[in-house]
């Protein structure tokens, strides 16, 4: 294979892990409350800025800015669910209209976060969070990768394994899964469903915040950086929107396909690629590539 294609694939895998991390956050929210979190991108962006503030403003050591951002964004997500979504669910007509209202709520949240960040004059210019390790690039044959790239891929793997362990082996994780599968039954066996919902949102938000700290060195930060949520959505759909490994596979597939299209077709077609892939996947396999058989949602 030509070095061009190899580099395209390698870089695509890295970018794909970027999409995957955000996609995982979206899927956790969706599984817990059926809502597509359109503020997911803004949470990533806010995590990046908070990480920057912690590093440059407060002078914290680099490794500490991850938990710092995670906790901050966890609070944003959990509070949003507790204060806003619970009320909406309670007051709205059940079914579709509640869902639509909650999705509009996440849109509102995205404007709130973006608007608040934009008020700070520092954000008028483009900034970059310094990478966790900036050193000599890593060469694998003709392929060149930055150290930050490797960090991203490793982080994606670690996070996925940690989440899998969390959901499979811990009580909290199992309780979250139970709540997402059947809230009624879960509350009957004593699981505090509102608390679970809040936790799921907080967890997803924290994940987005951590993703922000990882990605800001690669993607640069502006208040509009949240637009990447569209690509994360594409990754999640390809993976089936139900499974976390599916997100990673979907993200990597998307990243690689984008680069290959750029090399073999044209750079202009790169922006079309995710949408074509979404439509094709859903046409052929409506449940995504990695979910199980298509099941009818509970009526």
């Amino acid at each position, binding site marked *: 294979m030509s070095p061009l294609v190899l580099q395209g694939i390698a870089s695509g895998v890295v970018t794909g892990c970027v999409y995957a991390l955000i996609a995982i956050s979206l899927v956790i929210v*969706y599984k817990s409350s*059926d809502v*597509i979190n*359109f503020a997911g991108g803004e949470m990533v962006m806010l995590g990046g800025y908070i990480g920057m503030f912690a590093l440059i403003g407060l002078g914290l050591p680099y490794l500490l800015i991850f938990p710092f951002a995670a906790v901050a964004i966890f609070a944003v997500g959990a509070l949003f669910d507790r*204060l*806003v979504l619970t*009320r*909406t669910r309670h*007051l*709205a*007509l059940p*079914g*579709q*209209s*509640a*869902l*639509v*209202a*909650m*999705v*509009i*709520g996440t*849109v*509102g*949240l*995205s*404007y*709130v*976060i*973006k*608007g*608040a960040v*934009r*008020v700070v004059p520092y954000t008028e210019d483009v900034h970059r969070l310094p990478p966790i390790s900036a050193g000599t690039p890593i060469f694998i044959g003709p392929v060149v990768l930055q150290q930050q790239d490797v960090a991203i891929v490793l982080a994606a793997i670690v996070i996925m394994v940690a989440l899998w362990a969390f959901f499979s082996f811990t009580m909290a994780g199992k309780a979250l899964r139970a709540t997402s599968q059947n809230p009624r039954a879960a509350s009957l066996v004593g699981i505090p469903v509102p608390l679970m919902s809040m936790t799921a949102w907080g967890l997803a938000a924290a994940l987005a915040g951590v993703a922000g700290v990882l990605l800001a060195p690669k993607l640069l930060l502006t208040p509009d950086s949240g637009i990447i949520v*569209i690509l994360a*959505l*594409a990754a999640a*759909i390809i993976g089936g*929107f139900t499974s976390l490994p599916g997100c990673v596979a979907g993200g990597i597939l998307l990243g690689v396909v984008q680069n290959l299209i750029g090399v073999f077709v044209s750079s*202009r077609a790169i*922006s*079309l690629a*995710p*949408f*074509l892939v*979404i*439509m094709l996947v*859903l*046409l052929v396999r*409506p*449940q*995504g590539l990695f979910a199980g058989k298509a099941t*009818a*949602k509970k*009526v």
Partner: protein
Amino acid sequence: MFGSPPLARFAPLALLLIAGFALPQVLPQYFLFLGNILMMYAVLALGLDILLGWAGQFAFAHVAFFGIGTYTTALLQARLGVPFVIGMPLGAALAGLIGLVIGFPATRLRTVYLALATFAFAEAAQWVFNAWDKVTGGPDGLRISAPSVLGYATGSDPTAFPVMAAILALMIAATMYLTTSKLGRAMCAVRESEHVAAASGIDVNATKVAAFAISAIYAGVAGGMFTLFQSFVNPDVFSFGQIVLLLSMIVVGGLGSIPGVLIGVALLGLLPEIMRTTMRAFLVWQEFGYGVILVLVIMFMPRGIWGMIVARRGAP
């Protein structure tokens, strides 16, 4: 609630028509411009509400049909000299046709997959508007020459205003008929429960596809309306942000109700203008303020403003 709408319900439409002819005589162009924008959004929102509020289909493709309607009407006028009274229906028909075609595969998808597939379609359509520059002018956009409606020249806000009002009145009347018709009832049934609807003998798929096509026609009509008072179109008009705005309008106003949709359009359509003029010292907070308003509305009035009014009146 069902059956033909009583004649009294049409009274507000007569008012709308009268306003359409009277207001351009007294208001400065700026306010007429705002009015034109609102009327165009009203038709868009009504169409989206048919799909989302009545048939319960959470689909994001609406803005693509809006673009198809706009470009088709504008291009027919500019390239082939097709007059507006033929061009707009053609644009709407094309939009409806594509809506029909999209409807078939789309209806096999459930909830989030439907939303995301139609969203992908809308983004792909915007990419096509951008890339097909030989036809659409691409990113440089297209200048729209002033259309004439049956010999009456439009192209400016005061001249377009009465025509816009007339089209809006027509679309509202159409919506009233639709929602009280058999198809309208079928859509409601499908929204509440597809299984029960099927069990009652309703062809669920056909109903869903019909909803798609009809809402696409509305969007195509709105596209034609665009050419009446705007002089320039480029692909940025048909963005994801637009669809989000439309969704917000119908959620804030009240899903599944004509007055609700119109209230939502008026409020969220005017909100940016109001914020711009009142927040002079705090312009940078506009975005934040807009987000806060959205969040507050869905927190305290998740059924929309009209939903809250109806609930207060004592309906269940």
